[in-house]
């Protein structure tokens, strides 16, 4: 089995050479965290996308929200969010879930500007999300549309961690019990209104620090990397 750091590192360096100067190259050039780093010292960025569909191939991002996590502390001051310009196809029925209508989305910025902001916040940090494949696939698809290349994002998935913690006893978790809200409830975390990118990012970040309190802050990063 290929060691995590080496495998990912090689692929990332490969795309860094292809990347044009700017936020993408800056993100790629920031040294990836050593997988042996204790969780207490890992820097992450909880990221959440609201999107038109769940498939990166067919959907577009509508908005993104993020909150940095330094070790075991969620840095509220570093929170950020960005709205994307309305996709050509319109927001469609997804507005039912995230409340972003075509009018609201028209207040957003160009996809390139939005992604550059996200990458700037992500530089030097591990991507953190609940069901992280949505965020990584949409972010990678956007990078490919803009620059023709996409990095492989080092990421930590609170859903995966929760699944692992839930199956420690050997039984499969009840369907739905691993959703963000249901997972938070098990840690006594407060209920938030769902489907607003920044709030969801904060919710994910809080869930992560709660999970770290169970895993132990001395555990290495590699024990939670996806």
């Amino acid at each position, binding site marked *: 089995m290929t060691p995590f750091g080496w495998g990912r590192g090689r692929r990332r360096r490969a795309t860094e050479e292809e990347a044009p100067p700017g936020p993408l190259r800056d993100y790629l050039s920031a040294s990836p965290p050593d997988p042996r780093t204790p969780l207490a010292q890992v820097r992450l960025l909880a990221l959440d996308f609201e999107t038109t569909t769940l498939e990166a191939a067919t959907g577009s991002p509508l908005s993104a929200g993020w909150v940095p996590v330094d070790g075991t502390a969620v840095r509220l001051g570093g929170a950020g969010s960005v709205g994307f310009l309305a996709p050509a196809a319109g927001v469609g029925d997804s507005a039912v879930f995230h409340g972003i209508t075509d009018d609201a989305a028209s207040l957003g910025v160009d996809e390139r500007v939005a992604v550059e902001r996200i990458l700037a916040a992500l530089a030097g940090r591990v991507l953190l999300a609940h069901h992280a494949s949505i965020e990584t696939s949409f972010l990678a698809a956007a990078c490919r549309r803009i620059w023709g290349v996409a990095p492989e994002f080092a990421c930590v998935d609170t859903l995966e961690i929760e699944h692992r913690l839930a199956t420690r006893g050997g039984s499969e978790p009840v369907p739905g019990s691993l959703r963000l809200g249901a997972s938070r409830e098990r840690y006594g975390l407060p209920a938030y209104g769902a489907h607003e990118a920044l709030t969801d990012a904060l919710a994910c970040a809080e869930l992560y620090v*709660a999970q770290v309190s169970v895993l132990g802050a001395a555990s290495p990063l590699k024990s939670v990397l996806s």
Partner: protein
Amino acid sequence: MNAELTAVRDFLGSHPPYDALEPAALSALLATMSTVYVRRGTEVIGLGAANDTAYVIRAGAVEIRDTADGLVERAEEGTTFGVSSVRARAGSNYRIVAIEDSLLLTIPGDAFRTLLARPEVGRFFDLQSSARLRAAVLATRVSDSRHAIFGVTVRDMLGREPVTTSPTTPIREVAQVMARHGVSAILVIQAGRLVGIVTDRDLRRRVVAEGVGVERPVVEIMTADPISVDPDSPAFSVLLEMTSRGVHHLPVTDPDGKPLGLVSAGDLLRLGQSSPVQLAADIARQQTIDGVVTVASGLPRLVEQLVTSDVSADDIGRATSAVADAAIRRIVTLAELGLGPAPAPYCVVAMGSLGRLEAGLGADQDTAILVDDSGDAADAWYGQLAAALTDAMERIGFPRCPGDAMATNPRWRQTVAGWRQTFRAWMDEPEPTALMEAQIFFDMRPITGDVSLYATLSADILAIAPRSARFLAHLAASALSRTPPLGFFRNLVLDRDGAHRHTLDLKHGGIAAVVQLSRLYCLTKGLAPHNTQARITAARNAGVIGQESAENLSDAYEFICYQRVRHQARQIREGLVPDSHVDPDELSDLDKKHLRDAFGVVKTMQNALSVTYQIGFL
């Protein structure tokens, strides 16, 4: 970064003192903050540890313990902790441990100190505990329609314009006016001011029975210069006043003496189905001592009703005292009938809680007799009266005083001159153990008989007390020896872990401590009030204690007394003998927290006293 973390912002914005911040200040604060998660049992701040972070509990709970590991507070969502160490830039005086898995918002020391520099924020944290207590006291004073009398003033009861006449009107004409208006009392007015009152009873007793001519002017048979009440007096106290004076009507006048109307006992009684006044009135009608005992034993049931109606502890104490007063008056009157006329004028007085109008159920009876200097206090007549009184009161449910501070004890039946000497000895040559039992005598209040006997004695005591430095110092030492049971709250924590149980004594370091403090405050200035709440107010007005201290002490006393009376009502329901020892299981977490605050106030006032009197605090 202009992203709005609405979830956190809304949370902070709904909890004081952050709710008072303008939006820009709240945003600036949020930008400095972080969130951490701690597992149950985690020590967030160690005792003596350097701490430069203030925490706001977002979810969960922590326990705050002092240097002696006493539980100071169990803090929940929305509470800020770490304040004192951040403010003082010193090691923490508290140890703070999460008792639930908790999500905590953190504010760096510099940002929090900037916040504390805002007067409203600094003040919030200064007052946090006293404000909590005050809120708790107010919450106990919710009035209830079944005892509406407690929230009603005399003004609320005034109906139509008073029926009036002039002093020169013939008696016959006055009687006709009364008949036409269907009233049983009429006010006599001269130059717009109240000068007298005439009632049906006056017409019977002073006109018909004595054969006074009905053409005579009414001024000859009216009750001149009647007692009148202020329209803003509580209906409850007016009713007690009427009962104690044996009158059924009281004129209501504004401060200039202009008559506004008339209230009758009937008006007031209709407000409450089973008011203490009704009970007092029933007692006053009894023709035998056995009858008084039977009727007065309805007192515990009444107190229980008052407690479930959320009447304040102070009002319940007054109501209980009013009933006890009525019983003493009636017993003495009936005993006199059996014994024959007294050899010399005398006055029956109460001391202790009844003297302070704070009698509780099962309170010891503390009574004494003052005899006019023309008489002999050793006369057997007074001893027999005392024996009859003490026996009947015991049957009603007021146990004999274990310290024998009762009129049955020959030491406590003296002439006024004898009493003066006794008090002077206490004040001039104070002796700690004697003073211990003598303190309650400084709560002396006349109940029945010749009240003027007490007035001369009281004036003497109040004149001498402020000059008796050693006496006051002994009282101070005694007040300081009443240690509030703050350690109890540490034991609560042990109990939770299954260790042995303790009960909380509300009397020793709580009620008794405040009683002694307030008595001392008033004696230092020769102030007359007997009642503890009245003493606190008088001490504040005289500048003995500050406004804020007075409010805190008043709230603390009310809260502790309320907990006791509620506890006693529960004991009565369960057929137990009422006491002051509360099992922690009876108390909600909130009650415990407020009690801790209340005892904290008592301790603060004791500390201040120890500075004043240079007494080492235990």
